[in-house]
């Protein structure tokens, strides 16, 4: 009988209870929406349609392709941001002139309003009068159709996303790097290990947990990415930048088909949950790090 634990529980249990009830209620409502055919423009009224929304999603070619694009984007964005972020963090870990200024400035992309960032990149990528094509023209390269070519558009959005969110990984990594005991690294260097081996065998394993957390957060955010896609390309050209999230948005707010949009969103949530649980189990097994 541990008397000192009981009072603490009474503080947090009601709050957790409330959150659980709220989440449960919302989830039940979402499922209810999926089982009916609510459309904002429809005059037919709401009917129970069972699983027909899910059946429709299973055969919806546009939805399946959107899911594929989401997977591609999440994979590329997460891996590039984590790798680049770690590299930048390690570079910033050394002492050099202006280090404090650089560390402050590097956070700006992350803090910037996503809509402003999207608009700025849209102007930069403008095929006719954007800065990027201007610089390329100085180097003799003819204008690239960044946002109008279906093969390139998604990579243009990827570049903007990497610019915006790599600082997040840098931040996490920098925090962890500062906790690495310096004598371990010094010892490895004194033993004659090359810089690459020091990084690979000493520093990276210590960052493993951080890498895992950063990758997880970035992956979840990439699935939900909306601002850049909506502002830069609106899902075009030729659907080449339409992710599952954007497709759900279009179904909800352009087609006003609320129930089907909820089905898409619910499906995306389930897929994301499953995929990331698998990632967590793989990347952060208990007992290491």
């Amino acid at each position: 009988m541990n008397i000192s634990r009981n009072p603490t529980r009474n503080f947090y249990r009601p709050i957790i209870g409330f959150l659980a009830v709220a989440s449960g209620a919302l989830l039940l409502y979402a499922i209810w929406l999926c089982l009916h055919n609510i459309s904002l423009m429809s005059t037919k009224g709401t009917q129970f349609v069972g699983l027909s929304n899910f059946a429709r999603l299973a055969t919806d070619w546009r939805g399946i392709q959107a899911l594929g694009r989401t997977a591609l984007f999440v994979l590329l964005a997460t891996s590039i941001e984590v790798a680049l972020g770690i590299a930048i963090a390690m570079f910033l870990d050394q002492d050099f002139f202006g280090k404090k200024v650089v560390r402050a400035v590097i956070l700006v992309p992350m803090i910037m309003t996503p809509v402003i960032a999207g608009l700025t990149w849209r102007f930069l990528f403008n095929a006719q009068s954007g800065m990027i094509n201007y610089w390329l023209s100085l180097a003799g390269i003819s204008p690239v159709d960044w946002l109008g070519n279906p093969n390139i558009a998604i990579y243009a959005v990827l570049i903007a996303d990497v610019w915006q969110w790599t600082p997040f990984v840098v931040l996490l990594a920098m925090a962890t790097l500062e906790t690495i005991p310096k004598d371990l690294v010094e010892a490895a260097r004194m033993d004659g290990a090359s810089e690459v081996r020091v990084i690979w065998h000493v520093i990276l394993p210590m960052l493993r947990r951080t890498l895992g957390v950063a990758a997880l957060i970035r992956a979840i955010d990439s699935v939900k990415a909306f601002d850049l896609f909506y502002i830069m390309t609106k899902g075009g050209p030729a659907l080449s930048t339409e992710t599952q999230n954007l497709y759900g948005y279009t179904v909800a707010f352009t087609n006003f088909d609320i129930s089907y949009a909820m089905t898409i969103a619910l499906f995306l949530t389930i897929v994301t949950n499953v995929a990331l649980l698998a990632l967590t189990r793989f990347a952060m097994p208990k007992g290491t790090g």
Partner: protein
Amino acid sequence: MFKTCSISRTVFASVAVFTAIAATTSAVFAQEKPFTGQRLSVLMVGHPTTDAVRKALPDFTAKTGIDVDLEVVPEADSVPKMMLEFSAGSGRYDVVEASSIHIQGFVGAKYIAPLEGFSTKYGEFFDKNDFVPTYLKPNIVEGNLYGLPLFGESSFLMYRKDLFEQYGIAVPKTFDEIEKAAKTVKEKSNGEVVGITMRGQQGIQGVYIWASYLWGMGGSFLTEDGKSALDTPEATKSLETFAHVLREYGPVGVANMGWEENRLLFQQGKAAMTIDATVNGAFNEDPAVSTIVGKVGYAPIPVQTTKPKGGSSSLAVFNLHVASDSQQKEAAWLFTSWATSKQQQIHSLETDPNSGVTSLAAMDSKAFNKRYGAFKTAMLASLSNGNPQYIPTVPQANELVNNAGIAVSKVLAGTTSATDALKEANDLNNAALTR
């Protein structure tokens, strides 16, 4: 005693008269501004007309005592916003601005209120005969008036008179002639000036302009019995022609160009032709923003068929409606009739590049002729031939346009053939229509 009596009688008499006067005048004042102190919530679309209304709001408040909270959003976001509020019955907006294509859906779902009763009772700003008849017509459903037109636009062909003269090109009368003209410009200017520029962005932007090709070549969105008509040979040819002329003689990046990018490109003299909304004329002729003032010619959009199902120039009319769940319908009606009144429309010509007036008086005014004389004839011709069904006016309009927009984008980008893309859009549209 007598003196006091007479004084008090005089005082009594004068007080009585004074009170009577005060009562009558305050009754008159109260009748002049019966809705003083009410606050309206209005949702409008970003456009020069809206800017003019916003600038004139203090005048409205002075005249009626009603305060207005004006919310301005881009067109694409306005419909979802008002749909969400209407379907929830929240009563958030008293007045909304929407395109004519939504009227049928709104009336059917009882989202907007009939206005006949208010127009007879509070008609100080209202003059039914002043509105352009083709603009007012979509607002009348089953004999009842449901909205007042705020601005109307059509589309036409704008071309550089100076370049055409220089290269010896005649004004194109068919789509094939447009392509030949674009080719000539591109060759003779060594690619400096683009032959033609049009909106190609996926969604309503591209569809708005492609619709001109569709109707101009004898196609249509829907058949007589309300099924999708996008898989016809006319529709396929129109999409092939549209995509071809843009890919060969259009600007780089056309597949992501919306209204602003397209207009700016032409305004800066980098293209020889463009097909776009009539409001662009106002920008072309404004020396503050345009480098081609006085060098632009205006012509109607070609028709290249002997059996057109509708006009090739669009007729987009935006109207003000009073929401059904507004708690202040009379005040909302006053705002609606004020914003569309001939005084306000004529006044707006002074403050903003608003060439889309719906008032006949405003169109004939001196201010209009002074600013927009250069393209007035072409604009009026496009308006009178304008096609109010250039995109379908059924409740599923948004979804149909969206599917068509994907087809346009795919063909423009070269990933799919016109036949396949349109067949796909056709199937999706038929599914949406039967849902």
